[in-house]
């Protein structure tokens, strides 16, 4: 169920787009209305979630310190793993977000008879994760070309870097291969590593299947079953200039691709994909470890009932006097 349900959901989504465009001729629905709706849900949902998190305060400053703290001048602080300044925190966060620093630490615990444990470096998840996310980002940037009349320089640079392994025409993009490979790896590890399989939910398979299908339809369009690119550009330009028009003859594969992307966008705010926003807010990573030097304020700090010294002395006064301890009240 945890695998089959998301699997068939993706298939149903594909069929839906196919039937809608090919049989019911709902080009305007799939080409204009759904994309607008999806992007609206994405933006509104994303903001809603982030604001939701933001509304809960951070009562305590609880960084997970992963290196030497700020100490004497003669002890070297690890400013990135245990930052005590905002600059250090920014550095730590950049490493996390751009290079998945924590995942890079990953080690694999192995058990042998004895009992004996050994810990081996295990960078596969980190590598696949990076390959997937960076490919995703670069592909996203490349797609922006459809939305500009004159393609910005930055996008050109991205494209030419991405295609430096030029194999035939059309240009072959490295990220296309990477994303397919990386997502396949991520799916496979969910099937093959027993522990990961055991913890996986439908919500873990669904985005992977969805992204895999998006990438596959994209690759199909680009290298195998050509669609009418000029038409796609026209559609995209129409969408961003808020004067949507649906050109003829783009090809159903494109609509399937677009529909799945819309589903991904609309699904995003309600799912674990929100880790994209969440990673920036994580209190164990985005706070400086300067607690002892700068007081952190808890907005809901409230007075509590304590057992005061006076009460304590009342309980033990005679014993204290006998033991020669000073007391406040004789």
């Amino acid at each position, binding site marked *: 169920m945890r695998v089959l*349900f998301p699997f068939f959901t993706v298939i149903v989504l594909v069929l839906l787009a196919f039937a809608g465009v090919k049989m019911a001729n709902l080009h305007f629905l799939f080409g204009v209305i759904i994309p607008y709706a999806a992007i609206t849900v994405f933006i509104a949902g994303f903001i809603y*979630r982030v604001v939701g*998190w933001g509304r809960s*305060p*951070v*009562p*305590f*400053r*609880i960084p*997970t*310190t*992963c*290196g*030497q*703290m*700020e100490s*004497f001048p*003669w*002890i*070297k602080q690890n400013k990135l*793993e245990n930052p*005590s300044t905002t600059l250090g925190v920014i550095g730590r966060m950049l490493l996390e977000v751009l290079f998945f620093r*924590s*995942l890079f*630490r*990953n*080690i694999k*615990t192995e*058990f042998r008879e004895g*009992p004996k*444990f050994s810990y081996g470096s295990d960078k596969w*998840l980190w590598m696949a994760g990076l390959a997937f996310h960076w490919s995703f980002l670069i592909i996203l940037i490349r797609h922006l070309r459809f939305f500009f009349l004159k393609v910005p320089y930055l996008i050109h640079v991205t494209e030419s870097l991405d295609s430096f392994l030029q194999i035939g025409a059309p240009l072959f993009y490295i990220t296309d291969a990477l994303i397919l490979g990386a997502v396949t790896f991520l799916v496979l590890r969910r099937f093959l590593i027993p522990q990961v399989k*055991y*913890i996986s*939910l439908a919500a873990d398979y669904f985005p992977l299947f969805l992204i895999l299908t998006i990438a596959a339809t994209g690759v199909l369009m680009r290298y195998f079953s050509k669609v009418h690119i000029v038409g796609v550009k026209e559609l995209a330009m129409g969408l961003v200039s808020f004067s949507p028009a649906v050109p003829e003859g783009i090809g159903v594969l494109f609509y399937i691709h677009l529909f799945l992307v819309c589903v991904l966008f609309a699904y995003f705010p309600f799912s*674990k994909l929100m*880790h994209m926003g*969440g990673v920036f*807010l*994580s209190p*164990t*990573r985005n706070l400086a*470890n300067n*607690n*002892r*030097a700068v*007081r*952190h304020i*808890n907005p809901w*700090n409230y007075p*509590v*009932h*304590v*057992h005061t*010294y006076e009460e*304590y002395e009342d309980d*033990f006064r005679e014993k*204290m006097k006998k033991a020669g*301890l*000073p007391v406040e009240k004789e």
Partner: protein
Amino acid sequence: MAKGPNKEELSKLDYTLPSTEWMDTPVEFKPGTFCWGAKGKNLQTVEFPNARDWTPVEDDWKLPQEWEGTVLEAMADRLSKYRSFKLFMDICVRCGACADKCHFYIGSGDPKNMPVLRAELMRSVYRKYFTTPGKILGRLAGARELNVDVLKEWWYYFFQCTECRRCSVFCPYGIDQAEITMMGREFLNLLGLNTDWISGPVANCYMKGNHLGLEPHAIMNSIEGMIDDIETITGIRINPSFNRKGAEILFVTPSGDLFADPGTFTAMGYMMLFHELGLDYTWSTYASEGGNFGFFTSNEMAKRLNAKIYAEAKRLGVKYIIGGECGHMWRVLTQYMDTWNGPADFLEVPVSPITGTRFENSKSIKMIHVAEFTADLIKHGKLKLDPSRNDNLKLTYHDSCNVARGMGMMEEPRYIIKNVCNNFYEMPEDTIREKTFCCGSGTGLNASENMELRMRGGLPRANAVKYVHEKHGVNMLANICAIDRATLKASMEYWVPQVSVTGLHELVANALIMTGEKERETNLRGEPLPGKEGN
């Protein structure tokens, strides 16, 4: 070992997963893996709800009426108060990077001890009541209803997490299971579901100032005994003061150091050092506990206990506070105390009276760690040390979880060790510093009835010690935590009996050449010093 868990059985680890999904695998209360339930009288002492005696293995936990509502209300409340909790409920991608990082999972093979699944125990309920997909899709979205079985599962597994934060180091979003465990324990405490070994110490700390329940004269007696021992060994009679107004420094350490070996040797170490320096300091019998068992209970309880430290510093009129060797105590002091009970504007920024060093990094909380204090002394050449007195030791060092991952003090203790001991060997890199393994019995799990759990949880640490024992002949495990001194002692006796346990300041005091001391024949333990064995 005559009694206790069977070592052979504990050594056979099996990571095969159950054939049923985790939600369909009922929790099984295996003897030796859980603590006794809290006693009514101890809960009453601190005005906790549903105070009554109860037994975890009995079917009826004597829960209050409408307890589900209580838990869900509290959950809604904490979600709105803690961004950490809310975020950690939402953003886990179940990548599994944290799975094999928990000592309890490594030592037990129980999948619900994987940090990610421990979190899912709570998350599944969160989804059911607080998220739209969970409400609509239920099980398919990983959601489930809160019922007695789920509650018992929570109790069993949230008291199998030592809040050590090792998982959080490896998680790409820093998801910290310790935060979730803390919330879980808060909810359980609203129903009177603490353990005996936590609620007893909490009541003691509250009424008597320390977790052992030592009354004022008993604290003094215990310290008198140590002073006698110090005199026997060094010929020097030292004279500490208690509850003394006008002292420059208040000294607070875990009360475990006053009670049992090898903690007492560490306490002797502090006193010898302070005596040699002529430090103007006082003990307090009211704030006689550095550790904070409230921290294993609820945020509010932790604050209630912690309040004594500043209150006592204020009453006595000291300038600042020095804290002894303890693990979670230092996470509490670093990350919570000032926020709860500060600002300590009646104190001054700590300045070492011997070296003049100003502890800028503690300028707000006005409390420094004794290891910082000592490292600074050594760096300035203020101590006469003879490390050869520790030559019988081959030492390794255990980073306490909380000091490593909730503070980041890693070099100071090592610097001290290298100055007081000639033979020092590090354990493998993946088992020290920020990746250090828990002793296996932190957060109030160091009871005796759950010995199997403790030995399982302690196995990864013990295994790394065993490695350096076999490779370098290591025979002593140093640490800066009172709980470690109690728990590692037990796990070493069980897994690596050739290795003993010591606090850092025991080593310092052994090496310390005191003014006017007689020629020492023995170390603090009464064992002959190296080269004096024949006498």
